[in-house]
């Protein structure tokens, strides 16, 4: 299956999607406005973290048609996927960048489906940097990771549409592309090959 990233041309998108570390995982990089070139058969759309949401909202109808035709969308964090994907309810929260300063602090994120192929090799430390919010879990969706309060951070929804939505509030592309926060790079080192294998499996 082809993995097609929608780049908004920000420095962190360009660094994460084009630099040698991850470039080979993506078959094509397009702007959100070129989404109409993607056919649902045999393709997965990857929306990287911190994409300016207005550019995806403008494509919401197109994304809906793509899902209705059986397409797969991966929506990473801080891109307000609740505003352009069907059936997504997001609860944002102020970001605590300093939680780790307290001795013995634990953000509390955990992988809830360690056996899922998307989470192979990904442990608690690889999804721990900070939180931006959580989702209501759509009925029938599979939860892959949750926060300390058991709220959903990462899920797969193959129920709400004929397609598949892989949705998270984690934002590793932004931080990796900013050369900031090693856990985000560890996460992507595992998640992107897992995603390729999962899509091709």
């Amino acid at each position: 299956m082809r993995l097609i990233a929608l780049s908004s041309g920000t420095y962190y998108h360009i660094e994460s999607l084009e630099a040698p570390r991850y470039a080979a995982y993506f078959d094509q990089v397009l702007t959100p406005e070129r989404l109409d070139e993607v056919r649902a058969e045999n393709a997965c759309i990857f929306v990287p973290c911190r994409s300016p949401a207005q550019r995806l909202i403008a494509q919401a109808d197109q994304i809906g048609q793509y899902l209705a035709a059986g397409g797969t969308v991966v929506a990473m964090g801080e891109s307000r996927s609740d505003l352009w994907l069907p059936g997504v309810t997001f609860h944002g929260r102020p970001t605590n960048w300093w939680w780790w300063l307290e001795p013995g602090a634990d953000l509390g994120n955990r992988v809830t489906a360690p056996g899922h192929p998307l989470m192979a090799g990904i442990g608690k430390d690889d999804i721990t940097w900070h939180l931006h919010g959580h989702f209501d879990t759509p009925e029938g969706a599979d939860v892959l990771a949750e926060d300390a309060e058991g709220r959903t951070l990462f899920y797969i929804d193959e129920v709400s549409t004929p397609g598949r939505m892989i949705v998270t509030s984690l934002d590793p592309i932004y931080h990796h592309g900013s050369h900031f926060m090693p856990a985000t790079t560890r996460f992507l080192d595992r998640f992107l090959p897992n995603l390729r294998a999962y899509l091709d499996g």
Partner: protein
Amino acid sequence: MLYLHCAFGDPPAPVRKTAAAGRIAIIPQAELDAARLAKAHGLVTGNQLDQEALLQLRQALEGFLDAGGRWFFNGHVVRPLIAELEPYQSMRNPKRPDFEQTRLAAHPIFKGIEIAQLETNHGVAGFYGRGANPMPAGAIAVTGLRNGTVPVDWVWHRPGGGRFFSHAGNDLGQAGREWDLPPILYARIFDWTNGGPCLCV
């Protein structure tokens, strides 16, 4: 004077206030074209800038500078937006002392602001910047990391005309929030971009 709005949602309050006072025009990046640039004398861009799209206006950007325009740039350069710009370089294996800042030149934007107010956020260093956009020949380093050797801020009186200020981090106007600096920093950024005092001759 143009503030290029790329992110989702409203611009920060000091930017909206300056626009309401008629000093700047906030325009979505999609509305920027060569004709608009030709009429402007100042440009402020943020860290969610679509560099791929702006690269298409390179000739107009160079014309804007040739005519004496000033450009305040926030973020990492990853596209040759004008001829002399080179890709951002992050510090290799930075440690805590590498994030300590050195004031290398007395620029009006930072007048009276203690380095300590910009260096850390809730006591944590690294938010301000973690590398530098390489300086063109003749540029003057303003703020240095890693014992002053990494010019996270610099200003350049372009030989062909115009001036360019580079801040290689998140938007400078948003720095020092725990000290209520954003209104001061934005005011000074706009003053400089509008033709205000500059350390360059």
